[in-house]
């Protein structure tokens, strides 16, 4: 059997899901026998590949850049996994929703700036009005809640997805886990 192609993506999240993924520790070595990590914040590839079997997406959709990325990921992935609460619910990034991006940017870059108060607009993507979960933009195949999902959760879920075994997600994780 040829190795499956695995991608991991980091949208608007804290990278905690990726840290938890790495917390699989020595089990990553076994995992590397089964999958090729073709795209990830922890590998050097800059462009999302034409085809991946499993894409793990951390983070909510908060900017025009996130929106473009998630659509591209969906178009090129067989199984799209919403990894962690930000991707699934919006979670902490979405806590700005009742206030709006303008108030947040003002507070961070104008009110609290000690020098040259200005809102960054060059080289950074425009923020969307509302931070939303990824399934509001594209079809998601697997929802893996948790903040972050534990290393054991990752191991159980990935093993099932790779082998095609059944996967009972509420059995292993929940919102905020």
């Amino acid at each position, binding site marked *: 059997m040829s190795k499956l192609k695995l991608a991991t993506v980091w949208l608007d999240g804290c990278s905690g899901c990726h840290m938890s993924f790495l917390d699989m520790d020595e089990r990553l070595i076994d995992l590397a026998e089964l999958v090729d990590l073709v795209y990830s914040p922890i590998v050097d590839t800059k462009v999302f590949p034409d085809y991946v079997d499993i894409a793990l997406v951390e983070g909510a959709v908060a900017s025009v850049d996130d929106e473009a990325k998630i659509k591209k990921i969906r178009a090129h992935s067989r199984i799209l996994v919403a990894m962690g609460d930000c991707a699934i*619910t919006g*979670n902490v990034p979405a*806590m700005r929703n009742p206030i709006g991006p303008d108030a947040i940017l003002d507070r961070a870059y104008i009110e609290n700036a000690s020098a040259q108060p200005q809102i960054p607009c060059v080289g950074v993507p425009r923020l969307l009005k509302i931070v939303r*979960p990824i399934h*509001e933009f594209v079809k998601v195949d697997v929802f*893996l809640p948790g*903040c972050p999902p534990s290393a054991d959760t990752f191991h159980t879920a990935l093993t099932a997805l790779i082998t095609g075994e059944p996967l009972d997600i*509420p059995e292993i994780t*929940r*919102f905020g886990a």
Partner: protein
Amino acid sequence: MNDTVDVKTLTIDGHEVSGRRGQTILEVARENDIEIPTLCHLDGLGDVGACRICMVEIAGSAKLLPACVATIFEGMEVLTNTERLQKYRRNILELLFAERNHVCSVCVSNGHCELQTLAQQQGLTHVRLPYRNPQLAVDASHERFTLDHNRCILCTRCVRVCAEIEGAHVWDVMGRGIDCTIISDLHQDWGSSSCTRCGKCVQVCPTGALFDKSKIGSDHPKYPDFLPYLNLMREAQ
């Protein structure tokens, strides 16, 4: 107890059971170790059927009944966990999550929350509805406790425990529909209300909406088990 107790026989999920006239479906189910999920119900408080999680199917009726307030009758056939009910329960939970700002990961009740636990038990892995993201107040005016409206599901346990058990009736409900909100006294700050500082409302709150200021992180388990005991002791007096 008089000796002419009116006993009703019925079936719940195919099990033949019996109960006394006037007992609710929920009471009879739990006496027979049949679990019906609940959220606004709490042993020791009067039931109001607010959350609709405990809805059950009755043979011969298209109408679903809330098990916490519907009473049993002779020959009743109750189904508690059909696919239809599971679907509705998930829908209700999704509506609750979408209605206000429930952020489990940063909630003081993370790991001890009845809403969170119920969502997991009912197999909820995501919310299909768009989140409303309302802007809601946090009342931290009380010296010991905080009310975070973002996390309130309007179960009214706090209202009932304060009125029925503490006898203070500080909490009540204001507004209708989506504008419905818990208020203290005549809609004033909790800190300047007639609150007796007993803390019963905090212990019965199923989520992190009411919490003790001395608790940090998610280390805030709640202990509502005192209620049936307190009622028992009062009846004995």
